[in-house]
């Protein structure tokens, strides 16, 4: 088992390298440079060229790449063109917001999806199951952001239950009111995001429950006289839920990708919105840093899920 | 059949599969599926290759047809060396050497009609026009006892035995000289087995085809084969004519296989059962003598000019 984990970790290294090279090359293609517009607008082209030269912007690309990586490993992602501050500082606070929103979305996804999947599997073929299946495929096919727009319109603006922008109310003070306000702001986007993401968990769990229902060990338990409720609790749920837990890592990619839309619609100050603003203001260092960060987090998530699955699934373990 | 021309000669065939392991997935060992097999098939032979699962007989068959590359050794067909894939391709090897597969469920493409299935080798090796092709396929269907109404049907509409007959028709389509039949009746009900075997015999006579008949069942083979080779753990442990093997078996593995043939005669039941126990006892006591330190079979020793067996030298009787 350790062999699998170690091998998996080793594969991550070339993936990281290729990711960073890709991100770097893309960033070099973006038009513009870090200096025009940031310093004295009266600076001549000659002076700008000189600045670029001493900052190594005319060096061959692999040298520039190497410098970039070295800076990266020291935690230096460069300065934001727009704010003239270290990128790490700018991303910092936003990252926390996105993190909490993503976490809440993941929790909601499991909170909604697990019971739904179990319920549908248990009542296979009946009306409840049909309803769940209709719901699943409906949310799966409609584009994610459309669900968000409609949800925001109905629950935010229409019924005015939830706030539609920002991460915290401006007049909240003190620890608990702030916490509550933050939660209040997150609940609508998290729930809507969760509604969309539950379909895969629900499907998986449902078929897992159905397979387990027909399996021999459940039939044995029934023959022994164990009540259906207990069977579900002790046998079926445990077997079906373990892989679901492992899938959590894979969902990170989707959560991050979705953050772009969620934060745009709800004007939520997170990394997604930061990226969109950075694109519009041509803040290339921030853009590049975010793409790299997102890619890295996705990589990490896939890695963790692969490792978790290899621990859980005895079949994979025997390698 | 001793003076018939040699059709296929296999010399020291080895097929080794690498086993990967360790951290870097390097090759740490190899599975010696076929480890030094030599045999000679002459025109008109029905050559039986017998062994249990894992003995390497199917792999040998596949190597002969060209579906499996040989790791070492030589295969020659009618004096041309066909060990390499390029050589086989150049001489359209499969036009003359075909295969019948074991599982009737899997050996026919479920998405293709019978016409296309049987015509496939024709389309690759012979260039007939539409009419000629259709006539040929209809004729083949007739030979295996299926009517023209089968032409545009799908495999799932036929029984196991019928599907095997379609497989036989496909193998015979290009009028090959040698057909490798890999356990052609093992997946069929007993009552159907005889039917398919009879078809195979009929076709052999009509088209002058030689067979390499691979099986694990010495009972089935008794009626079909004139030459038999017994395989065990990748090596041949006994070769001989039908008489040699059934009347004078020498290797304990052969004896064991013979003893396990179910006896249909109820009256001989006791006798047969006693015989089987005896063979088992002899096997348990002496099996190590017949295999070397590595657990591999001994080299073959010539007993008569048709009979060879992999017995220890001191056991050779006059």
């Amino acid at each position, binding site marked *: 088992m350790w062999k699998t984990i170690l091998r998996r970790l080793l594969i991550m290294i070339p*993936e990281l390298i290729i*990711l960073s090279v890709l991100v770097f090359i*893309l960033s070099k293609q*973006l038009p513009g440079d870090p200096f025009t517009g940031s310093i004295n607008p009266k600076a001549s082209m000659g002076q700008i060229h000189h600045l670029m030269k001493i900052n190594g912007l005319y060096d061959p690309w692999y040298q520039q790449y190497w410098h970039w990586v070295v800076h990266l490993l020291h935690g230096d992602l460069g300065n934001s063109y727009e704010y003239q501050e270290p990128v790490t500082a700018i991303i910092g606070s936003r990252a926390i917001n996105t993190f909490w929103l993503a976490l809440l979305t993941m929790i909601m996804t499991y909170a909604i999806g697990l019971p739904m999947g179990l319920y549908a599997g248990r009542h296979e073929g009946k009306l409840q199951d049909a309803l769940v299946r209709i719901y699943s*495929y*409906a949310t*799966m*096919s409609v*584009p*994610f*952001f*459309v669900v968000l*727009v*409609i949800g925001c*319109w109905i629950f935010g603006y229409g019924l005015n239950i939830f706030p*539609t*922008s920002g991460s915290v109310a401006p007049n909240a003070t003190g620890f608990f009111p702030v916490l509550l306000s933050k939660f209040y702001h997150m609940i609508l986007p998290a729930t809507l995001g969760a509604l969309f993401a539950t379909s895969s968990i629900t499907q998986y769990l449902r078929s897992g429950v159905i397979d387990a229902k027909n399996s021999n060990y459940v039939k044995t338990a029934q023959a022994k006289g164990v009540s259906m409720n207990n069977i579900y609790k002790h046998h079926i749920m445990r077997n079906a839920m373990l892989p679901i837990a492992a899938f959590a890592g894979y969902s990170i*990619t989707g959560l991050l990708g979705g953050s772009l*839309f969620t934060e*745009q*619609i709800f004007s939520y100050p997170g990394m997604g919105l930061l*990226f969109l603003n950075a694109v*519009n203001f041509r803040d290339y260092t921030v*853009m590049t840093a*975010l*793409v790299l960060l997102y*890619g890295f987090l*996705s*990589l990490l998530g*896939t890695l963790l899920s692969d490792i978790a699955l290899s621990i859980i699934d005895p079949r994979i373990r025997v390698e | 059949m001793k003076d018939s021309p040699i059709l296929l000669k296999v010399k020291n065939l080895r097929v080794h599969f690498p086993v990967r392991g360790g951290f870097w997935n390097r090759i740490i060992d190899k599975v010696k599926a076929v480890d030094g097999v030599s045999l000679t098939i002459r025109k008109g032979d029905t050559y039986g290759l017998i062994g249990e699962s894992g003995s390497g007989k199917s792999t040998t068959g596949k190597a002969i*047809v060209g*579906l499996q590359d040989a790791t070492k050794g030589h295969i020659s067909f009618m004096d041309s060396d066909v060990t390499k894939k390029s050589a086989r391709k150049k001489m*359209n090897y499969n*036009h003359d050497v*075909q*295969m019948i*597969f074991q*599982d009737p469920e*899997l*050996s*026919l*493409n479920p*998405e*293709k*009609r019978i016409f296309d299935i049987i015509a*496939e080798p024709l389309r*690759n090796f012979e260039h007939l026009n539409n009419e*000629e092709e*259709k*006539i040929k396929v*209809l004729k083949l269907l007739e030979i295996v006892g299926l*009517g*023209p*109404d*089968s*032409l*545009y*049907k*799908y495999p*799932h509409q036929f029984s196991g035995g019928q599907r095997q007959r379609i497989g036989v028709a496909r193998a015979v389509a290009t009028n090959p000289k040698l057909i490798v039949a890999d356990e052609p009746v093992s997946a069929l009900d007993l009552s159907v087995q005889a039917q398919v075997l009879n078809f195979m015999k009929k076709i052999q006579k009509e088209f002058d085809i030689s067979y390499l008949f691979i099986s694990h069942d010495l009972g089935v083979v008794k009626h079909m084969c004139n030459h038999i080779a017994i395989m065990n753990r990748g090596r041949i442990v006994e070769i001989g004519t039908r008489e040699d093997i059934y009347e004078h078996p020498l290797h304990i593995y052969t004896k064991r296989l013979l003893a396990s043939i179910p006896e249909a005669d109820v009256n001989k039941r006791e006798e047969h059962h006693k015989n089987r126990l005896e063979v088992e006892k002899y096997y348990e006591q002496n099996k190590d003598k017949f295999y070397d330190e590595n657990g591999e079979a001994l080299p073959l020793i010539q007993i008569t000019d048709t009979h060879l067996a992999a017995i220890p030298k001191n056991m050779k009787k006059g």
Partner: protein
Amino acid sequence: MQEVESKDINLKKLEAEAKANSTPSSFKLMFNEFKSDKMAMISLILVSLFILYVIIASFFINTSNMMSTNIMNYFAKPFTPDFWLGADAGGRSIAKQLIVGSRNSILIAIGLTAISSSVGIAYGLISGYFGGITDLAMQRVYDFMMIIPSFMIIIEIVNIIPSYNAISLTLILSMFYWMGTSRLIRAQTLSESNKDYVQASRASGTSTLKIIFKQIMPNVSSLIIVDTTISFAENIGVETGLSYLGFGLPMGTPSLGTLIANANDADNITTYWWTWLPATIEIIVLCLAISYIGAVLRRATNATQRRSTK
């Protein structure tokens, strides 16, 4: 020759007999299953008609005229004879934008599905059939493509290229959306490649290319049909999403996404609801209809599978 002659007379009769006993192919079977579901047929017809309408009607609309701003019609109300669906902040007819935008978004989605499905199918077939190192390498590429943040990179690319049109955009998008299909196809191909009929084809002398595309692919064809349909529904969201964020089609080209983007303004979303609601409703209905068709197709293929594993 004599044999041919005597058979000649019978050939026609035998041929007729064979044809009379022929069985419908799995395509026909699936289609018949599908036809029996009334709702699915209606959905299919409605969707096809809608797409046709949108394409034809957009020919009659002069895009540059339509997109020119006319402050006089600032947020004109809907359900009037001039503006069936009202107008937006620039006084442009929403109804006309909806027709042209639908055409653009749908055609891009069709193109995206066609290209990414083809790539995904070929990728899965090759990866699954050859196995070994080829498969390993291809899977590494797959893994990598799955972790890169596709949307962000697409947005960056869109900003790098000086000019692009609908076609180049479709090509760019196709680079990132073939993975799902390839995974499905690969799984099925792996299991099919181990079956004896593939070996039988090889022994019959069929070339590798023909085996992959003419022997194995028909066995995954039902999977392909279902997956392509469902992918189509999902792919509509790709360009629309991009345009919604403002990075899709170049300025001045309407799309369903740009229309829904009207909802970004807090005022618009409630007061001037006609600017974004029609496009939103259209996308929801379209996607639901298409994925319903896909679900029915999947059910139909399961029915035909049953007959072949008797």
